């Protein structure tokens, strides 16, 4: 059993969640049949908490958040509930959702150009939102506030930047502008989907630091979506591991990285090349996971990971779907308790695939 750092109750554990996703399901009809893209996803995000959603491409990360924001194609069938400050996003109409997207939930996607208008200046794009949501009294105040926001996200010479067009900025600077826009509505929740994936590591480090600072300062809840496990180790409080549209493991970041309980999580961590391998570890064989993830139109019965699972204890794995159940008491980095859960019939020895120990 893991040594969960239980004890004193802390902020993240106690507060009313900003977001509570319950049994989220998304299905889409495709030429290849019905795609079951998200299959019963539940999690919550407390104020000031960073929840990382990790998984390989196609595991349903993006669709799971687009569903919350009403950004899926109209023919998508979405089920479950997603309470944002107690109100169900999935029950809202488009006008109400648009209001929430601009004022309450901030979004940052991988490609900043999906959020920016190429023919408007950076200044216009920020002030429009501020004025539309009545956050400023007039144009002059809007420009002041916009310049302040750009300064907050670390844009050099923010006043000059107001007059620039997106194409005049580098990728890292554009992503800062998108973050400034996301923050202009003073969001209670920030959703970042592969927000640093296209950036170089030195710029990525700047953005991670920026978002983490803003989270700490404003108590923003953050959902950080990425395929890159390294990116979340330093900033997440809690991690959810997605596979085939299901959460196969979740828990405090230390618990999941150091004592992964699900064979898939163990496999992912074992497959990662390590920067700080000892000299003996270099050029050794990586422990690859055989095969490839299943398409959502063709999910296997039983445990969704069983065709690739090196453990695959018994018949049951192929027939029954393992529920997500606690495997240990667990904790966030700040010491507050949070269960460490995994959806597997066979919880293998801790630490086997861990990167940290």
């Amino acid at each position, binding site marked *: 059993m893991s040594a969960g750092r239980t004890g004193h109750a802390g902020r993240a554990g106690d507060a009313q969640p900003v977001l509570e996703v319950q049994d989220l399901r998304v299905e889409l009809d495709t030429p290849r049949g019905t795609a079951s893209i998200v299959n019963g996803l539940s999690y919550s995000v407390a104020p000031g908490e960073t929840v990382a959603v990790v998984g390989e491409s196609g595991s349903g990360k993006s669709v799971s958040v687009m569903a919350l924001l009403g950004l899926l194609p109209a023919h998508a069938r979405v089920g479950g509930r997603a309470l944002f400050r107690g109100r169900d996003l999935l029950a809202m109409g488009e006008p109400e959702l648009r209001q929430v997207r601009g004022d309450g939930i901030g979004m940052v996607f991988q490609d900043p150009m999906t959020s920016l208008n190429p023919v408007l200046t950076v200044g216009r794009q920020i002030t429009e939102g501020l004025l539309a949501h009545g956050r400023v009294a007039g144009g002059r105040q809007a420009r002041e506030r916009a310049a302040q926001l750009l300064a907050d996200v670390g844009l050099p010479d923010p006043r000059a930047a107001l007059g620039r067009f997106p194409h005049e900025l580098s990728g890292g600077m554009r992503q800062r502008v998108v973050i400034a826009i996301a923050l202009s509505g003073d969001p209670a929740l920030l959703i970042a989907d592969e927000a640093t994936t296209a950036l170089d590591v030195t710029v990525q480090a700047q953005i991670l630091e920026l978002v983490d600072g803003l989270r700490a300062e404003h108590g923003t809840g953050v959902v950080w979506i990425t395929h890159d496990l*390294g990116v979340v180790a*330093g900033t997440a409080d809690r991690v959810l591991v997605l596979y085939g549209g299901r959460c196969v493991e979740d828990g405090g970041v*230390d618990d999941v990285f150091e004592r992964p309980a699900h064979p898939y999580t163990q496999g992912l961590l074992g497959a990662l090349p390590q920067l700080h391998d000892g000299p003996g570890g270099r050029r050794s064989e990586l422990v690859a996971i055989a095969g*490839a993830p299943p398409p959502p139109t063709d999910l296997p019965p039983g445990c969704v990971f069983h065709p690739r699972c090196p453990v695959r204890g018994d018949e049951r794995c192929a027939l029954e779907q393992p529920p997500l159940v606690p495997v240990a008491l667990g904790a966030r980095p700040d010491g507050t308790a949070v269960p460490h859960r995994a959806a597997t019939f066979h919880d293998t020895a801790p630490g086997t695939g861990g990167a940290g120990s």
Partner: protein
Amino acid sequence: MSDVLVRARGLQVHFPVRARGLRRRRTGEVRAVDGVDLEIRRGETLGLVGESGCGKSTLGNALLRLVEPTGGRVEFDGTDVTALRARELRALRRRAVMVFQDPYASLDPRATVGQTVAEPLRVHGLHPGAAARAARVAELLELVGLDPAAAPRYPHEFSGGQRQRVGIARALAGEPDFVVCDEAVASLDVSVQAQVLNLLRELQQRLGLTYLFVSHDLAAVRHVSDRIAVMYLGRVVEVGDADAVSTRPQHPYAQALLSAVPLPDPAAERRRERIVLRGEVPSATRVPSGCRFRTRCPRAFAPCPDVDPALQEAEPGHRAACHLHGVVGTPVPAEQRGPA
């Protein structure tokens, strides 16, 4: 036989920048590769890292003469590649090959996997005759871990990892000595990436291949490389044993780059001190005078704008182009010393 298979000396690739309009006047140049000295030893993997736009792909292409160098030279197995004529160039194309990043874009969607892998055999006149060629294709597919029965199938029927295996089989068809892997695993998921990295390593051992492994992913580079070269703005600024470069980087840029790589280890991440760089990489059309890193270097000092640092030994077998290890290099003419 020298133990160096590929050598670049003062290698330059400058691309012209032209004005818009009919005359397309030349207004400047992109110094994509700007004086690179590099040696790749037989049988080793040299990792090449650096941020996007620093010139990694251009350097890899120039070593294979897929782009024409504008200065300096490249030697492959002792011969000057830049002076080769058509027939000799074809021989080079067989011995020195590229595995590309994108297994989706680099395969012809209308050609079967078998046709794709057989193409270099046809071009180089190897294994002539339908039966011999089919046998060789089957052998190559097996070599990269694919079922030889897959030969009649089309690329869209394969996953990303399998397509990358097809790309590798094709690259290996002519029994090359030298393979440039340019972001060869970048578009693959972690679990599949590990399969391909393992395959590349196994092939190297079996076939005695020499690799230039180009990647922006330092952990992957560290995993596969014997030695690592770090590039910044068209120049190799550090090169040495993989362990030494990744644990004791000597150039301030390499130090910052390594400190920014996220580690999948929460405890280590919390202990870590990051060197956060100021500003952004300058444009390759306006390279700063002297040390090209000086505009962002936290340790820049008096000689940095005035002397272009040469690679020099910082510890045995580990070289860095930085004046902190002694002011050595090419003085900048007084009129070119800018404040920028």
